C-alpha cells in the first residue's frame, strides 16, 4: 500500500546538532495519528520536514510519492497548524483570506467558503473582529479553519491545544474529528496523552530524533514495547508508577 507520507532515513543536523537521526516514518494507517515524545525529541522538526518547510541533510521525504517542492514553499495538499498560530494585524476574515492562494479559488468564491468555514468553527460572530485580540482557543480554531480552507489531504498539527483550557481543547478535538471524517489525514503532536488516546488510532513515538516505536494507540498505552516509551509514559503519568503494572492504566481516563 502506498503511503501518503513517507520519511526515509531523514537526518537533520543544523550546526552539527543532531535533531533528526535517520528517522523513518510512514503514514499509511488510520485517519488520525499522533506523534508523541519528550521535549526536544524532534516532533516539531519532523512536522516541518514532512511539510517541506525544512529540508533534511540526508534522507528523502515523499508526500503522495512527490519530493518537496522547489524553493522554500511547503507541499501543496498539506497544511500545518503551528503551536503558536501566527495571525497578521487584520480581521478574522483577513487572516482566512491568506489561504486563498493555496486553495486556488477566485476571491469571491473563496470568501464565500471562508464565511461558511467560520460558521463551522464557531467564529462567525467574530468575522470582523481583530484576529490579534482573539483568545487562545479562538485563535487556534481560526488557524485550523485557515489550514482547512486550503483543502489539504494531510493536516499536520503541532501541539494544537498547548496551554488551552479543557473547553477549548474539546472544541479543537471536535474540529480535528470533523476534518478527519471529511477524508483528510491528520498527524498531530501532543503532550496531552489523554488527547492522544481520545483522538488517534495510531501512535508514533519519537525519541532523540528517531521513531522508536509505532503501533495502535491502545497497544501503545497498554504495553509500550520500547524502553524509551515506557520511561516516557512513566514520567508523563507518574501516578501509574504506584501500580504493580505501571503501564497498564487506560489513558482515556486522563483529561
Amino acid at each position: 500500500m502506498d503511503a501518503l507520507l513517507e520519511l526515509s532515513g531523514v537526518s537533520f543536523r543544523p550546526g552539527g546538532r543532531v535533531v533528526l537521526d535517520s528517522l523513518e516514518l510512514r503514514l499509511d494507517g488510520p485517519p488520525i495519528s499522533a506523534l508523541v515524545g519528550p521535549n526536544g525529541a524532534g516532533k516539531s522538526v519532523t512536522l516541518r520536514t514532512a511539510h517541506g518547510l525544512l529540508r533534511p541533510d540526508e534522507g528523502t521525504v515523499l508526500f503522495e510519492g512527490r519530493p518537496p517542492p522547489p524553493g522554500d514553499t511547503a507541499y501543496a495538499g498539506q497544511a500545518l497548524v503551528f503551536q503558536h498560530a501566527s495571525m497578521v494585524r487584520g480581521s478574522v476574515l483577513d487572516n482566512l483570506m491568506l489561504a486563498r492562494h493555496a486553495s486556488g479559488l477566485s476571491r469571491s468564491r473563496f470568501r464565500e467558503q471562508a464565511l461558511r468555514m467560520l460558521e463551522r468553527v464557531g467564529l462567525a460572530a467574530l468575522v470582523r473582529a481583530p484576529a490579534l485580540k482573539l483568545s487562545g482557543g479562538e485563535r487556534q480554531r481560526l488557524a485550523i479553519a485557515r489550514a482547512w480552507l486550503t483543502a489539504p489531504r494531510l493536516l499536520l498539527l503541532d501541539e494544537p491545544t498547548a496551554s488551552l483550557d479543557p473547553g477549548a481543547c474539546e472544541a479543537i478535538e471536535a474540529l480535528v474529528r470533523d476534518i478527519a471524517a471529511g477524508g483528510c489525514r491528520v498527524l498531530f503532536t501532543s503532550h496531552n496523552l489523554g488527547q492522544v488516546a481520545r483522538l488517534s488510532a495510531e501512535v508514533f513515538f519519537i525519541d532523540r530524533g528517531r521513531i522508536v516505536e509505532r503501533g495502535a494507540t491502545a497497544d501503545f498505552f497498554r504495553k509500550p514495547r520500547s524502553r524509551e516509551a515506557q520511561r516516557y509514559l512513566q514520567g508523563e503519568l507518574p501516578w501509574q508508577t504506584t501500580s504493580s503494572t505501571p503501564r497498564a492504566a487506560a489513558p482515556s481516563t486522563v483529561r
Partner: protein
Amino acid sequence: MISEALLQAFAMLRHFEGDVVEIAVLSLSVSLSAVCIASLLGVPLGAIAAIGRFPGKGALAVGLNTFMGLPSVIVGVIVYLLLSRSGPFGPLGLLFTPTAMVVAQTCLTLPLIAALTRQIIEDAWGEHGETLRSLRLPLASRGATLIWHCRFSLVAVLLAGLGRAISEVGAVMIVGGNIDRVTRTMTTAIALETSKGDLPLALALGIVLVSIVLALNVVASVTRGVAMRRFGN
C-alpha cells in the same frame, strides 16, 4: 534681541505674510512628493531585502544601512552632476527647479525608508515567515502581507523620511539654487535670512517648520494609537 526677533516672527505668522506661506507650501510639496516617491520605491525594496533569497542580500542590507546616513550635500552634488547641462539628464532642463529638489530629496530618503522597512519586515518575517511559506504565498504576496501587517510601524518610518527631507538644506540648496519664489524652501530661506541678519523671518520659518513636523507627528501618532487599539498590538 532674540525675544524681539521672536515677537516679530509671531507677528509675521499672525498676518500670514506672503513669503512665509509661499515658502512653507513649496517646502511641504517638495518634501511630501519626495517621501511619497521614496516610499513607493523604498518600502517594497526594504521588504524584498528582508524576505527575498538572492545573492548579495547581505551586501544590499549593508549598502542600505550605509546610505541611510548619506550627507545631503553629497546627494546634492551627485544630483547636480546628473542634471547639469553636461550631465546625462541635462537636456531635461531640471536643474534649479522644484523637480530637481524632489529628485534630490527622494535620493536622500529612499535608503532611510528602505533600510528601516527592511529591519521591521525582517522582524515580522521571523514571526510569520513559516506561516506564509506554509500557505504557499508567492514572494510578492508575502511582502505585501507583511507590509500590511507592519503598516503602523511603517508610518513611523515614513515620518522619519519626511523629517529627513524637510529638514535638510544641503541638497536642495545645491540643486535648487535657493531662487526666490521658485526654489526657496524653509531651510534654504532660514540659512539665507540668517546670513542676511533677518532673524524674524528666519525664526518665523523655523517655527513653521517645527509646527508642521509636530502636527504631522501628532496626527500620525493619534491615528496609529487608534488603529492599534482597534487591531491589537
